[in-house]
């Protein structure tokens, strides 16, 4: 924290006697100064401005402001459907926000510029201080002031042992209290709290490390999502969606096999005010790390991911997969199995689509069927009579669906969303009464389709689980740097910098001992420290010391709050 405008100005000050003035916020003067400079000087001038504390402060505040739009606009990285929805809701504003990179704020040019400038400023400020600090760590404690009673804390006492013995004992006492102590003639000079600055430097450099760790993970990370129904199996080479890092592809995913054996899902059923709140989500899986390896059973639950090597598999969602059997006009089974329906509400009103591309009608002519439906795990009626789910568990499962015929659009090779039905080239199946066919089925029901299209049987319902498979290298490094930064922060905020001097001289056959303390900035614990040193000294000398009660000066004048800028001590 103790970064001052001065530290890095030293080498420049000779060349620009009025550098101080120019940096004190007089913009007009600054510009004049800049225009008279030669290119190299101008560069140094810019560097000095960039690494100044004022600029760092400005960049910090700018960073805080720049981060805010990322929470007010949906972001591509964590809410792509939100972005799509925003485009629909705000058609005029969308292109502008998009042009300003408002949908990927944290990788935008302007956000990156701010944090990169901030980090350059940080490095430019901190690196020179490492050298200065290194020197100050090896320098000797300061000379003993001539008159200790002028210092803010001062105690005197009389002892019978020789001054030599007093100083020896004081040396040990100060060492024990973590002081660097050194003998001067007739006195001891001691200092502690150097690591306040060490902490400060460690904190700032760890932030640089943290940034590098995060950047490295964007090169080597990958993430994939996969939906698996109970009884189903997936392998590490197929994903519903996959995002690689700069240098990673799907081939870098370990070739694991994951079978979803069963799902434990439960919701609150008893406590009235909490009905329907989730209580358990757990997927029981069989994992095989690579082909031929021994398989193991694991439970992947919320807050309890599984690992394959360094790749982490977590449960990111769940829902229902109605099992439908579709027979075509000739009685052939053209569809048999579970289809995942995506939950749309807390009560799992779920929507989904079953596409049947290869059916024939009663006349043997090829036909494509599309079934678009809503699955209600606990069906009940809304106030206006529309069916709605009233509880998330499958207590009264009902499937409501429409049927379409025509071209599913699967043959033109364009990738399709499996959860939506493109009805532009399809017509809705209409019954004999001229009404659109609406299937409303409970498990076990079979409905005959009109026009000899066949039948649909709702066999039952399975659950599905969505898994998030992700590899984030550099996360351990990021954690280590974050913890280092915290340790540095604590040291830089709470380690007091104190100096203590002990003087001893003979006086009328006894020895007069003086202990005095000085702190950098304001330090409430200084008096206690000086008292402590004297008390320990007394103990180690093994005699009771008559402390002169009048030797304590009045408390220091209030008014000097901790202000590192006022105490540029580390300068040679």
């Amino acid at each position, binding site marked *: 924290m*103790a970064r001052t405008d001065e530290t890095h100005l030293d080498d420049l000050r000779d060349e620009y006697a009025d550098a101080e003035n120019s940096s004190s916020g007089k913009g007009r003067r600054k510009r004049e100064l800049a225009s008279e400079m030669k290119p190299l000087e101008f560069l140094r001038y810019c560097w000095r401005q960039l690494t100044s504390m004022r600029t760092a402060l400005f960049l910090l505040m700018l960073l805080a402001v720049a981060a805010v739009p990322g929470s007010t606009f949906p972001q591509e990285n964590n809410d792509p459907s939100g972005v799509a929805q925003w485009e629909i809701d705000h058609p005029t504003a969308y292109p502008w926000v998009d042009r300003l990179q408002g949908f990927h704020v944290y990788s935008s040019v302007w956000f990156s510029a701010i944090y990169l400038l901030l980090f350059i400023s940080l490095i430019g400020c901190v690196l020179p201080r490492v050298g200065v600090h290194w020197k100050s760590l090896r320098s000797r404690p300061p000379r003993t002031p001539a008159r200790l009673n002028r210092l803010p804390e001062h105690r005197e006492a009389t002892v019978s042992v020789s001054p030599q013995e007093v100083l020896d004992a004081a040396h040990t006492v100060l060492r024990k209290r973590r002081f660097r102590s050194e003998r001067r003639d007739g006195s001891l000079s001691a200092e502690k709290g150097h690591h306040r600055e060490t902490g400060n430097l460690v904190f700032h450099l760890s932030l640089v490390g943290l940034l590098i760790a995060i950047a490295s993970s964007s090169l080597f990370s990958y993430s994939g999502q996969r939906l698996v129904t109970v009884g189903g199996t997936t392998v590490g080479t197929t994903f519903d969606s996959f995002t690689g890092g700069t240098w990673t592809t799907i081939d870098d995913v370990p070739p694991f096999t994951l079978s979803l054996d069963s799902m434990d899902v439960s919701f609150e059923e008893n406590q009235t005010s909490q009905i329907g709140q989730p209580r358990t989500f757990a997927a029981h899986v069989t994992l095989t790390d690579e082909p031929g390896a021994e398989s193991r059973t694991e439970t992947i639950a919320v807050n309890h991911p599984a690992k394959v090597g360094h790749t982490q598999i977590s449960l990111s969602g769940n829902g229902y997969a109605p099992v439908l059997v579709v027979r075509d006009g000739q009685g052939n089974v053209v569809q048999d199995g579970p289809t995942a329906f995506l939950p749309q509400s807390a009560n799992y009103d779920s929507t989904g689509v079953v596409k049947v591309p290869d059916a024939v009608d009663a006349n043997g002519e090829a036909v494509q069927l599309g079934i678009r439906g809503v699955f209600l795990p606990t069906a009940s009626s809304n106030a206006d009579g529309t069916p709605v789910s009233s509880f998330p568990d499958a207590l009264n499962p009902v499937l409501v669906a429409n049927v379409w015929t025509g071209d599913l659009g699967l043959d033109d090779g364009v990738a399709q969303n499996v959860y939506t039905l493109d009805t532009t080239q399809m017509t809705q199946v209409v019954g004999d009464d001229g009404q659109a066919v609406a299937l409303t089925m409970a498990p076990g029901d079979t409905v005959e389709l009109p026009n000899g299209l066949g039948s649909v049987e709702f066999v039952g319902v399975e659950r599905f689980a969505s898994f998030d498979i992700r590899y984030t290298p550099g996360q351990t490094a990021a954690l280590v740097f974050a913890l280092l930064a915290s340790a540095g922060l604590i040291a830089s905020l709470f380690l007091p910098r104190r100096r203590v001097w002990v003087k001893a001289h003979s006086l009328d056959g006894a020895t007069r001992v003086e202990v005095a303390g000085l702190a950098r900035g304001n330090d409430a614990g200084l008096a206690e420290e000086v008292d402590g040193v004297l008390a320990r000294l007394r103990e180690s000398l093994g005699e009771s010391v008559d402390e002169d009660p009048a030797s304590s000066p009045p408390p220091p004048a209030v008014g000097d709050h901790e202000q590192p800028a006022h105490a540029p001590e580390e300068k040679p």
Partner: protein
Amino acid sequence: MTVDENLAQISNITLYGGMTAYLFSFIAYACDLAEGGKEIRSREQRRQAHASVGGTATLEKPASARRRRAAAVGTSLFVLATLLHLASVITRGVSVHRVPWGNMFEFALTGTLVVAVGYLVAVLRAHKAGLGGGRDARYLGTFVTGPILATLGIALRTFYVEAAQLVPALDSYWLIIHVFVAILATALSTLGFSATVLQLVQEKRDRVKAAGKRAGGVFMDALPGSVELERTAFRLNAVAFVMWTFTLIAGAVWAQVAWNRYWNWDSKEVWTFVIWVVYAAYLHARATRGWDGRRAAWLSVLGFACMLFNYLVVNIFFPGLHSYAGV
């Protein structure tokens, strides 16, 4: 595990009791401040009377060393309130067999308890260090009981949810660490904010006085000066900043376990980051000439405002994984 609804009921009743005690404590502390003001005013009048008759000035006791019966009553009531509050938090936790900070209501309930305990610790420490010299921390009493009452009132009115089990997403030991550190950080910045507001008022009064005018709010003379208040605020904010750093780190570690990635700029993550940066700016400002004192104080006020925004607005109105929109 089922919820012990009897115990949850007891928790609510003790909370009402605690709030009543806080209310009377607030009144007593306010009386103390008013008395302090009265005393200072009458002392000034006496001094002027002395000066006019040309008598020798008698030694006056400093305002902070006077006997403060109202403050003593306020503190006793405050202790009672804190004990009831503590009982409420413990019974709430026991009734649901978990730590009592699983939703916004419980966060406010436990957070205000930490504020109360933090204030009592400050009073005790100041008392140990000697009552003289303006080191009596009870001057903060009104400014601690007020926000505690307001927070508990809002929490009961707006965020109240019945005692219940955790949803699976929160059922992790990281809840204990992450949220508790966040509670500590929030509580300490609340205390820091109180001290900062007093500091800014004192500075304003100093400026008015320096201009030769009469400053309003004479009772403020019984409080420490702006410099000491600034130092108190800094200590509180510095500890709060470290706590907030740990909140951020613990949150990232939990996110790695729960959501498979440690940082994804979820709206709550964004605001946690913004708060961290603003407080970092505050700490840097204190060390920058021209930015120390009042300007830095305003930065810490801004930081606290962001913290309130993060709790009250982001949780409820911003879509994201930390959403408590169901309160």
